[in-house]
Every structure is written in structure tokens, then in C-alpha cells.
């Protein structure tokens, strides 16, 4: 089942002759349990695509549907609720609140959604435990390493019943070992049924995805969706 659908999405900034087109006629469908990577150089429209998919920005034309519900018909309140309950965001610079512990950061989206503090805290701890971070629950962001901060950010993005995970260069500030750990966590979330989109210019990250879409000047110019059961590698292990 498709949890995220983008149909003919275009986005322009400004009007008339000075208008800048950021995205043109993008179609994207991400099924439950699937990981899609969007690759492209700076300025190709990757991040704009992600913010539109996450209802943080309106497209100039086209339609976005999340978990079967079209965003066009939704009120601002409904969209805000959708962002709190259904969509998880991961950013390059973590965006953890410095005055809250790891567990409080993870529980925050639930508390904002009206879940009681006790239940939100329990869910936060469970999300941290699931990602091997139980022993970091009481630490503040400045007491965590970069890799741990991003893992806490991923725990926050999947806490509760999130169905869609949107990540913008999630390992951009990390070394390759931590970057790999982050991708494994995103993949684990997919195995639990989450539909994930990762925007990146990093081929290592993209190679974890089921499908890779290449953007150039706001257009999807190519994609890779190999049959991974049919390896062409010249090694007996393949």
C-alpha cells in the first residue's frame, strides 16, 4: 500500500519573468516498508521535494496524499495533526532541543499531540530502547556524540505510530560508520512498515534504498530500481 503519493508536483518561487522553478511535474509513490532515495546536486530541488512531501510547504501545482488522505482538502489544523502523528522528520543538524533530555526530546511530539506526559515518556523510552539507546535516555544533547544525537533524532521521528519518515541528508554531519548506523536504523523502521524518503547527495546512503530517483534542475531525470535478487557482481558471495 502506498503511504506517500506525489502526483505531478511543481513548485515555483516568484512570478512572471523572474520566477524560479524549483520542481517540475514530479511523480513519486512510496509503499509501506519501502525506502526511496532522492539524489541530485545542490539546487536540484531535493529538499523542496521533501518539504512538500511533508506538508511543510505548498506545491504550486500537483497533489500530495499521505496514508490515502489528500493534503489539498485538509485544513491547517488537520495538516498540523498529520505532521505530529504520521510524519517523522530527520534533519542534517539533528534539531534536538538542548534543554530536554534524549527521552524528553523523543517524547515531545507525542506530548504536543495531547498524549499524557507519563505515556509519552514511556513511548519515548520504548523508541530509544528499540534503537539501542536506552542508556542515553537521561542525557542532554550536549552530552551525546554526533552519531548518538542523530540516532535520538531518528527515535523521535519514528516514535508513536508514524507511517512516513522524511530525512534530509541524515548523515551529512556524521562519519561513515555513524552514517551507516543511521541508515540501518531507517531501514529497520522500514521493516516495521514505515515508508521512508531520504534526500542525499551521498551515494553510500542512496545505495541502501530500494529505489533511487535522480533530480536535475527540478526534474526527475532517471531512476534505479534494480532487482536485487539478480546480482551482477563478480563474486561468489553475490
Amino acid at each position, binding site marked *: 500500500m502506498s503511504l506517500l503519493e506525489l502526483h505531478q508536483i511543481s513548485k515555483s518561487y516568484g512570478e512572471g519573468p523572474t520566477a524560479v522553478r524549483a520542481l517540475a511535474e514530479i511523480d513519486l509513490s512510496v509503499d509501506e516498508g519501502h525506502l526511496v532515495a532522492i*539524489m541530485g*546536486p545542490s539546487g536540484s530541488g531535493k529538499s523542496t521535494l521533501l518539504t512538500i512531501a511533508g506538508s511543510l510547504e505548498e506545491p504550486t501545482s500537483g497533489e500530495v496524499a499521505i496514508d490515502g488522505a489528500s493534503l489539498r482538502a485538509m485544513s491547517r489544523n488537520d495538516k498540523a495533526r498529520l505532521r505530529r502523528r504520521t510524519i517523522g522528520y530527520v534533519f542534517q543538524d539533528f534539531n534536538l532541543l538542548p534543554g530536554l533530555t534524549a527521552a524528553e526530546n523523543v517524547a515531545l511530539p507525542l506530548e504536543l499531540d495531547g498524549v499524557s506526559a507519563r505515556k509519552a515518556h514511556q513511548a519515548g523510552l520504548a523508541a530509544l530502547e528499540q534503537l539501542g539507546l536506552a542508556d542515553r535516555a537521561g542525557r542532554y544533547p550536549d552530552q551525546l556524540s554526533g552519531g548518538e544525537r542523530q540516532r535520538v533524532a531518528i527515535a523521535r521521528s519514528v516514535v508513536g505510530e508514524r507511517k512516513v519518515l522524511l530525512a534530509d541528508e541524515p548523515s551529512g554531519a556524521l562519519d561513515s560508520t555513524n552514517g551507516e548506523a543511521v541508515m*540501518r536504523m531507517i*531501514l529497520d523502521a522500514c521493516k516495521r512498515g514505515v515508508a521512508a524518503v531520504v534526500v542525499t*547527495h551521498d*551515494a*553510500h546512503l*542512496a*545505495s*541502501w*534504498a530500494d529505489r*533511487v530517483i*535522480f533530480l*536535475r534542475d527540478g526534474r526527475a*531525470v*532517471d531512476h*534505479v530500481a*534494480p532487482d*536485487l535478487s539478480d*546480482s*551482477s*557482481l563478480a*563474486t*561468489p*558471495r*553475490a
Partner: protein
Amino acid sequence: MSVRHAILALLSEGPKYGLQLQKEFESSTGEVWPLNIGQVYTTLQRLERDGLVESDEAENEGTQKGFHITDAGSTELSSWLNTPPDMTSPPRDELVIKVLSALRVPGVSVHDVIQVHRRYLIELMQQWTRLKEDEADFDLTFALVVDAELFRLDSVVRWLDTADGRLKRAASEPSVASTGPRLGRRLVVRR
């Protein structure tokens, strides 16, 4: 790669038979590079000729012959481990030449050519990553070999990305765009 030195490395652990060396070579390289038993024995004969290994006489006819490393072999192995491979001159890389050639062929979009190669490399990286996902956590040598291959492929993707951006900027800036012929001259000079 140097099968010769890999065999010396295996013998540095103690005396071994040819068949044992074949199996240990494959497992120590994450089973990524298969090795023919004939190649093992040919290499052992050459190592013995050069005084780097010695064979033990078989106790009975029909039993396997064991090999052990000599002092000269240990010195050679240590020297090889600590000598960086020659990377001073750029290899004549087929992909680089294809992209440079695409610049000169009328009617060909170099960006499209770059994308064809980028797509292929990402597909290969996906296949390697999938192997890592399944097995690498349980097998250190295999993980190291897969990482090496992923970084090698990634470096080519990065070069393609950089070339793509550089060509795009060159097309939009006339002063930079005039580098076409200079690229050609440099190629000729290097040859």
C-alpha cells in the same frame, strides 16, 4: 592483486598445504576473489625458486606437501606490507576517457552520458550494500572488502557529480566554457 604476497602472509602463521592455502586465501579475502588451485601451486613453485618458501618432503607418496616461509620470505613480506603501491601516475581510466570524449562528439549530451554511468555505479553500490546488510556484521574480512569496493565506486560517483557541476558552470560562464580545447591539449600532452 598480489597472490604471491597473500600466500606469504598466510604462511607467516605457520606451515600449510596448497589446498589449505587456497581455502584460507578465499576466506581471508571475504570469499570475494576466488583462487584456482593451479595458481596456488604455480605461485608456490615460484616462491620456492626465489628462496621465499621451502617445501617439506611428503612423508609418504600421495600425501600433500607442506610449505613454510623462509627468513627471506618474511623480509619480503614485511617490505611489501609497508611499501605503498605506485599511485603516482593517474590510471588511463576508461570512464574518464568516455566523459572527456563525450565533450567532443557533436549531438551528444555529456550530462546524459554522465547519468548513464552514475546510474550503473549506484546499481552496483546497491548490490554491494545489500550483501553487507545480509552478511557483513558476521564476517569482518568480507565487510572490509565490501567497504573497499563501495568507497571505490563512491569515489567515481563523486567525480561524475563534480564533473557534472563543473560542466554546467562552464556552460553558463563563457570564460570558463572556453576550456574545451585546453582539456583536449592536456590530454594530448599526457599521452
